[in-house]
């Protein structure tokens, strides 16, 4: 196989690892980090496509992903702080507000 196929597969594997982490870890902060892993996998796939087709579009898209990631992390951290204040714990199993 050539490198591009390998890289796409790699992106898929990293994405699923991130998803696994989101679903599996109980610590809220680690879950946020695994979200970042998923985003990274997406960036990797875009870059691979850009490199393969030699266009700028893929690379430009990564910028917008970076923007989204930055906004997301700012907001997410604020929300995390508030959530932890509310429930007094980082354990996701205690955050049952969406029940029912």
């Amino acid at each position: 196989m050539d490198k591009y196929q390998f890289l796409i597969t790699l992106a898929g594997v990293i994405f699923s690892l991130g998803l696994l982490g989101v679903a599996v870890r109980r610590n809220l902060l680690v879950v946020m980090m695994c979200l970042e892993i998923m985003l990274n996998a997406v960036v990797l796939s875009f870059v691979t496509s850009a490199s393969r087709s030699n266009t700028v579009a893929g690379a430009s898209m990564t910028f917008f992903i970076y923007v989204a990631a930055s906004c997301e992390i700012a907001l997410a951290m604020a929300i995390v702080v508030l959530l932890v204040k509310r429930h007094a714990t980082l354990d996701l199993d205690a955050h049952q507000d969406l029940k029912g």
Partner: protein
Amino acid sequence: MNKLTLILMLPFLGFLINGLIGSRLPKAAVSVIACGMPALCFALTWSLFSGIYVSQVPVVEELFTWVAYPGFKVEAALYFDQISAMMCLVVTGVGTLIHIYSVGYMSHDKSFARYFAYLNLFLFFMLLLVLGKNLVMLFAGWEGVGIASYLLIGFWFQDSEKTSAGLKAFIVNRVGDTGFILAAFVIFFFAKTLDFQEINTFFANGQTSVAMMNLIGILLLIGACGKSAQIPLHVWLPDAMAGPTPVSALIHAATMVTAGVYLLSRLNGVFLHAPGAMTVVAYGGALTALLGATMGLTQYNLKKVLAYSTMSQIGLMFLACGVGAFNAALFHLFTHAFFKACLFLGAGAIIHALHGEEDMRNMGALGKKLPITLVTFLIASLALSGVPPFAGFFSKDEILWSAYSGVNGSLGLWLVASISSFLTAFYMFRAIIMTFFGESRVPARLEKGIHEGPASMSGVLILLAFCSATVGFLGLPGPLREMAGVTAPFYDFLAPVIGHVQVVGAGGHQVEGAGHQLETLFMGISIVVAFAGIALAWLFFSLRKQWADQVKGRAGYAYDLVSQGYFFDALYYLVVRFVDWVSESVLARRVEVGLDAGVLTAPNNSVNYASRLFSSLQGGSLQGYVLYVFIGLALVLLWGVLHV
């Protein structure tokens, strides 16, 4: 507007006026409107009748199309032929007289206007019944007279006994109506029409099987039995005497109860091809005649005696229909209307004089104080008993002769009819002797005020007695016709529509022409029978009163059986109790519980279970939700991969 439609709508107009604003009008106005409408109808009927007497062409009036559907068409149409003419004349003529009588009878009643409104309503429906051109119109009138009867029987509705009598009448009628409707369905299934002329012509060609014809006949008979108070649906008629006496005269003597006879005559085309049904009609009629007469023997209420007498006489009319002598049945209907109305109105005069007393044990020696009533009552009773030259003799005799000589006829039927005539004479004169003669058993408080009713009442009585005496000559039987050299206008008038016809496939003593000696012999026997009944009544109740009590004592169980109406009421009560038990113990306790569990609770429980199952998906775990999203995404991708 056409005369037929006017005849129909005038009483309805009277009902509307008296019903809506009558209580605010003076009594005179109400009476004029109420009596004027039937009088106008009578005048119109007479003019139409004279027309048809000459031309013999029926008058047809189509009002509108009621139902128009591919394969099923019902017109609201009126039909005036010879039978309708006769029935209309009776209904409007006797009806007008009874309206006039009611003005005097009900003058002290506080619901004067309501009474006349209901009476006019009844007239409207009865005319609809006899003028209808198809089974639907007839049935509309049929049901309507049932409603009017219910309203009038329970006229004094504050008394719950009277209202339950009205309910009983209506419900028993309903049972008969089931037979009627089923008959209509079967007729439509074969003939594809409900029009009378078309029905009669369809069944005349004899294609339908005899079994089906018998079925239709029996179903129609059930309907007729309900309306005409024949066994086994007769239980409502004695209780119906709870209504005002003119109502009993009009509805339960002269007109409504004869609707069954009218129905049978109208559909004679069906019956003539159903020998089995005809036999049932004949024997049923004979049985009712006999049983009704025996029950009249034991009654002490004057009106109930007359009610059982009506039942018995209509039994004779059914007997005549059953042996194919439809014209004899209709002639007896005609004469019976006059003398029975006269009898009921006479009883009304007595009750009016005694301020509501109906029990004959509290009457006696009224003849001196109520002479007009006595004479008219006597004339009408003689007519009923079949004494010549009064009307009842000629009509009853024709029926007795047909019972022997008609198809399905036999000596047995003649014997039963003769015995009923004997009993009729006996109990009628028992009633007369107990009421008018002997010593007075009237309670002291009523003694003073006994006097004849106003002119409206007495005048009607005299007129009706006169008719009872004379109308018989319109339909002389065969031998007498020959002797006197005249024709019978009544039978000639009806001949184009109904004659003495042959019933397909039945036997009987077909005696034509040379049988006049036998007929004259039978006539003589019936005269003897009538006088024997009168004489015996005089013997038992006037000369040797103790014999009556001895017979009653010796009869014992037989007396109880007869006076309790052969326990028909008890039997029906048992049936009702049984149905009630089934409904309560079987249906409510067992079936409904099971149904509730299976149909109501089980789906409820399963829906609850399913919803709890689904709600457990929303456990509140965020990570679970994320997984659900991605599982869904994975499935979508998988589908995309497979189908691309």
